[in-house]
């Protein structure tokens, strides 16, 4: 018995009163039908979070020891550095890969069975013929489950964010790096929402759990890979002739270089051959002293655009998820047995 359950109507005869549909009832229905899933997800993410905290404390400690080690070129410090790069980075990398797969797995294990189980076991014949019909309970279940999982995913990504901090100053690693961007900020929660929505839609479409799970994983991976490329086109890129764009307190603050080109005197773009010569001329120099009138331009996304990019990404994922959930409800409405 749950606290959400309404008290019994007094008297035997409830014929006279046709009760309206309170959303609290739908919340109870959602909780009762999906509590197994929700509790399992909470348990798995909770256990993973505990692991991240325990492992993270050690990694943070190792990292603090490493950066405090002076002089850095000493054998002792180099040992620490290689230990960190070998052991801790391997662990961090593995966790990051799993983290990237988590929204897809949540989509497959939470989203796909959400309605497909109903169709597969035949219980839809009970659920869809009750007095409130099939649409409102389906909306409630889709929205409440998707929202709950999204919030859990957001909380989990905050733990991961902390866990991963020591690895961001690593070479080639910025918060804009595809695999990092996906798992930080609000993107992880948005991707989880998209995963669950894809799963629910696929489940309603193919009406079988296992095929729906496979479709969910496939579609999610294609979408995630496409997004890595798509991000370049978010309207946040900057063009600059400064040679200092990549320099900051740490690589965490470094930019994502999208491309570059040279211009000659008068601002005309250089031919490939001339550009190659210019590159050869300055090759290996930190400060590239180009001949007068020649400029190297760089198109890049500064790391300060992390949050605008996160909002853009979360925005379109939210729209996509809303569209998928609406389509799922439409299928519930339309789909005949």
């Amino acid at each position, binding site marked *: 018995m749950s606290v959400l359950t309404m008290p019994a109507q007094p008297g035997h*005869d409830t014929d006279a009163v046709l009760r309206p549909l309170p959303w609290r009832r739908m919340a109870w229905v959602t909780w*009762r039908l999906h509590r197994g899933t929700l509790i399992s997800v909470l348990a798995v993410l909770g256990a993973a979070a505990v692991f991240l905290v325990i492992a993270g404390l050690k990694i943070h400690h190792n990292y603090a020891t490493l950066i405090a080690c002076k002089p850095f070129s000493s054998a002792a410090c180099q040992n620490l550095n290689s230990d960190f790069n070998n052991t801790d980075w391997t662990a961090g990398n593995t966790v990051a890969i799993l983290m990237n797969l988590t929204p897809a797995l949540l989509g497959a294990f939470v989203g796909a069975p959400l309605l497909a189980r109903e169709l597969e076991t035949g219980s839809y014949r009970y659920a869809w013929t009750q007095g409130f019909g099939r649409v409102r309970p389906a909306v409630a279940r889709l929205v409440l489950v998707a929202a709950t999982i999204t919030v859990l995913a957001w909380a989990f990504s905050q733990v991961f964010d902390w866990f991963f901090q020591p690895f961001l100053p690593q070479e080639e690693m910025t918060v804009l790096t595809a695999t990092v961007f996906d798992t930080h900020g609000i993107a992880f929660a948005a991707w989880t929402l998209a995963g669950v929505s894809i799963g629910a839609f696929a489940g309603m479409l193919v009406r079988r759990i296992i095929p729906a799970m496979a479709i969910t994983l496939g579609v999610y991976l294609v979408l995630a890979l496409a997004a890595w490329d798509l991000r370049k086109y978010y309207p946040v890129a900057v063009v600059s002739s400064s040679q200092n764009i990549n320099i900051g307190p740490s690589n965490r603050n470094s930019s994502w270089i999208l491309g570059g080109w040279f211009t000659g005197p008068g601002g005309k773009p250089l031919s490939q051959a001339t550009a190659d010569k210019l590159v050869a001329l300055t090759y290996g120099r930190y400060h590239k002293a180009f001949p007068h009138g020649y400029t190297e331009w760089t198109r890049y996304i500064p790391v300060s655009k992390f949050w605008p990019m996160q909002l853009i990404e979360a925005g379109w994922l939210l729209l996509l998820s809303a569209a998928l959930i609406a389509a799922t409800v439409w299928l519930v409405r339309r789909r005949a047995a």
Partner: protein
Amino acid sequence: MNVIETTGLGKRYGKEWALRDCTLTIPEGRLAALVGPNGSGKSTLMNMAVGLSVPTEGSAAVLGVKPVGSRAALDGIAFVAQDSPVYRNLSVGDMLHLTRNLNRRFDDAAARARIADLGLPLKKKAGKLSGGQQSQLALTLALARRPRLLILDEPLASLDPLARQDFMTTVMTAMTDDGVSVLLSSHALAELERVADYLVVLSRGKLAVAGETDDLLASHRVLTGPAEAADSYAQRLSVIQDKRAGAQAHLLVAASGPADRVEPGWEAHPVGLEELVLAYLRAPGGAPAAAPSPALVSHIQPTEAAR
């Protein structure tokens, strides 16, 4: 008031018509039996009546409400699908709460009293109940919604004889106490013979015959006479079934009334319900749709043997 009214109702799955040309009226207050062999379209008709399935052609109204499956329609109907689907991992008590929360009207006290009468433990998982108990649970939940029309798809198929009797007793009690109309499908007629007061016979996706049981019995009879005279006699009658046994012929015919003149040398006998239904089911090619009026039955083509 008719609980179900269909006009030219049809449902096609791919290229196969599961049901076609079904024009049917079931009046209020009846226990209507929907009979036919497996695959004759019974579940298809019921699914369309509760809105689980959308007609390919024609239309249907349930309790005077169109479209079927709308919330206005579902408020008055309780449907127990084949094999009484329940959430197997929910307890009996949870199924009560769930059904209560999914309906605008739910008689919780009555449902609990009934569950107690049946001796179903509230904590027990629905999936762990016996087949008979699951059916009773599904029926209890359906009746607690205080429906005007109770639709039961093959409720007796998976039950042992004792459970069948208990189940039917509950249904009959609901009919007499609350005035519930019932539409019940079965592929076994024997157990409905005594209780069904309205009969709908489906055969190969077509409506074979439908009507008040008493009217149907009164308007059909078996004529027994010499086989050599049967062919010519049969041409003047609407023969549902023509059985020959040596020199004797048994013609199951639709008559306009018991007062019809019988030719000399022939004897008329009343027909049993099961015999009547089987005759319609055996009619080749499926009989054309027949309204409650027996007059329509005269369109039925002569049987193979009579040709």
